[in-house]
């Protein structure tokens, strides 16, 4: 982008800055978005994404994920703070940002009336890739997302999963430095979802593609992202690698259901080494401890000694769901209702095509 009246040393200074920040693909400092002077959608968040990293923004609907993506993609202005993408300041050099990014939006934007390959070629041409280079990349990407067979079919005949895969390919056809994925698997069944994770993981491993994604599926963040940030009501509550975050909520949860008995074993469980918390609901005890394997024999032996029968025993390794519950005070599942709302909306949109 040519900025009129800019002293020549500015561009030199900018290149130097880019050199210094080379490993930081995305940087956000106190990024804030206030809509119409009232609604604070994103509230002073700071984070950075390194080159070759898959970074996940995890949060319920309306948490500020899409607004953040919109600011980084130049679709929304920044109310306060600053952000840069691939070394370009988002507010001052939106053209530079647009040259470097690939965007896979939440909506399915491929044209029903055009064939799969035509949609890809259109996306390529709009990013100044044309001729044989465009065709070659389009074919490569169709192979990657397993749509070779359907390339010559109109998109109207595609299933939801195929549309999502095509959308992913459309975001990649100009070989962007950073790929933005907004809810890449929204509304897909679990097999199709895992397929998408495969593609994204592969792109990251084999091509070193930097990915910034939003999701409200915890498994998705867990299996794809090297680092995640949990965002709620426009604020980042916690960030780190999935393993680190899980560590922080305090290890495993052992669930024991005992046969009817008048004895309360809460105190006994609390006394077992390393147990951090015990809650009892009816005859079901939830015991929090760092490693179940170590304490399990002691617990089982203790229960039997008190003359009580164990009806059911199970334990879970920590999940991001628990992390989420811990930092936001609510379960991701509370959001199920609003998720189905957005599914209905998506459905209506597809009908409108």
């Amino acid at each position, binding site marked *: 982008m040519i900025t009129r009246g800019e002293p020549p040393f500015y561009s030199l200074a900018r290149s130097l800055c880019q050199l210094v920040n080379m490993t930081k693909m995305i940087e956000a400092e106190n990024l804030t978005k206030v809509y119409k002077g009232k609604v604070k959608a994103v509230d002073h968040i700071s984070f950075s994404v390194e080159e070759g990293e898959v970074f996940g923004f995890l949060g319920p609907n309306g948490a500020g994920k899409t607004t953040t993506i919109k600011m980084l993609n130049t679709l929304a*202005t920044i109310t306060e703070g600053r952000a840069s993408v691939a070394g370009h300041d988002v507010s001052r050099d939106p053209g530079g940002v647009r040259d470097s990014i690939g965007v896979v939006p939440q*909506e399915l934007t491929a044209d029903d*009336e055009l064939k799969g390959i035509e949609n890809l070629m259109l996306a390529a041409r709009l990013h100044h890739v044309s001729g044989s280079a465009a065709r070659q990349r389009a074919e490569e990407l169709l192979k990657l997302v397993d749509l070779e067979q359907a390339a010559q079919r109109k998109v109207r005949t595609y299933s939801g999963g195929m549309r999502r895969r095509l959308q992913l390919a459309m975001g990649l056809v100009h070989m962007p430095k950073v790929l933005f994925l907004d809810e890449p698997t929204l509304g897909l069944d679990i097999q199709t979802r895992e397929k998408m994770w495969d593609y994204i993981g592969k792109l990251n491993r084999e091509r070193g593609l930097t990915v910034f994604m939003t999701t409200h599926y915890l498994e998705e963040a867990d299996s794809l992202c090297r680092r995640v940030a949990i965002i709620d009501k426009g604020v980042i509550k916690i960030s780190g690698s999935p393993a680190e975050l899980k560590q922080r909520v305090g290890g495993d949860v052992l669930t024991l259901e005992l046969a009817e008995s008048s004895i309360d074993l809460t105190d006994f469980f609390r006394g077992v080494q390393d147990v951090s918390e015990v809650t009892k609901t009816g005859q079901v005890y939830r015991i929090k401890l760092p490693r179940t394997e170590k304490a399990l024999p002691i617990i089982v032996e203790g229960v039997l000694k008190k003359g009580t029968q164990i009806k059911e025993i199970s334990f879970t390794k920590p999940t991001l769901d628990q992390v989420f519950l811990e930092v936001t005070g609510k379960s991701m599942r509370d959001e199920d209702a609003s998720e189905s709302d957005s599914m209905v909306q998506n459905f209506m949109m597809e009908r409108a095509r």
Partner: protein
Amino acid sequence: MITETLVLSARALKKWIRNPAAVVPGLVTSIFYIVLFGSSFNPTSLFTSGLVGSSIPPAIIAQIQATITQQAFGGAPTYITYLTAGVICLILVFNMAFGGIDLVLDRQLGFLNTLLTAPIPRAAIFLSGVVQNLVKAMFLALLTFLIALAIPNGLELPSGFGVVDFVGVFLAFALLGLGLSSVFTAIALSVRSIDSLVAIVNFLTLPLIFMSNALFPSTSFPEWLRAIADVNPISKANEAARLLIVNGTLSSSQLSTFTGDILYLLGFVVVFGLIGYLAARKALSAE
């Protein structure tokens, strides 16, 4: 910028051609306009069917009829000959106005956002909207012209009507279309829902058409309405096209009227193209 404009326009037109549901109603509407307006509004039929029960001698009726056709319809041999230019203007207005629905859908379905995050000049997004609507509407304009020619008692071109006259007629239509397309593309890019687009467009199109000489000669209007109709670009395009369609070879005073109309339309395109672009740029800027 030109490449992107062409790529985007080609996409829209490809979609349009491949979707018979979008093209066929347009064709049928063109036929309806010509045939129905031509039959139902035809004031000369009052005379040909005879003034029943009146004692006026037929020779005088014929004379009245000739005078009226000469004065009101500029000497057009049939009513449809007089009407064709006006109906084409009407088709241009309606198609430009409602062509914007595709652009609103592009916004609602997220396609517009994918354009906005791509390195495309914002002007190309606006221009492609203008071009796609213009091409669609001009296609229907041409078709309406051909239909009018084909039907019995329809459009009768004067003997001297040649290629140059044809180009002149469609130059007037194209300039009107370009200006209108800029206005309506800007409106379509500025609204967020089809409902509001339809509301605005309905509010604009009827006065635009009825405050012009497209359907009735403005000589019969009250003075205030004539004042408005005379500056309406629809009237100018209609006047220019109608002069050629009815007369073929123009007299020098007709030629200066024609030239004046074309220059006026050029001004209309420049001014409203610019206003449209500025409005569109605002509508396409980051939220």
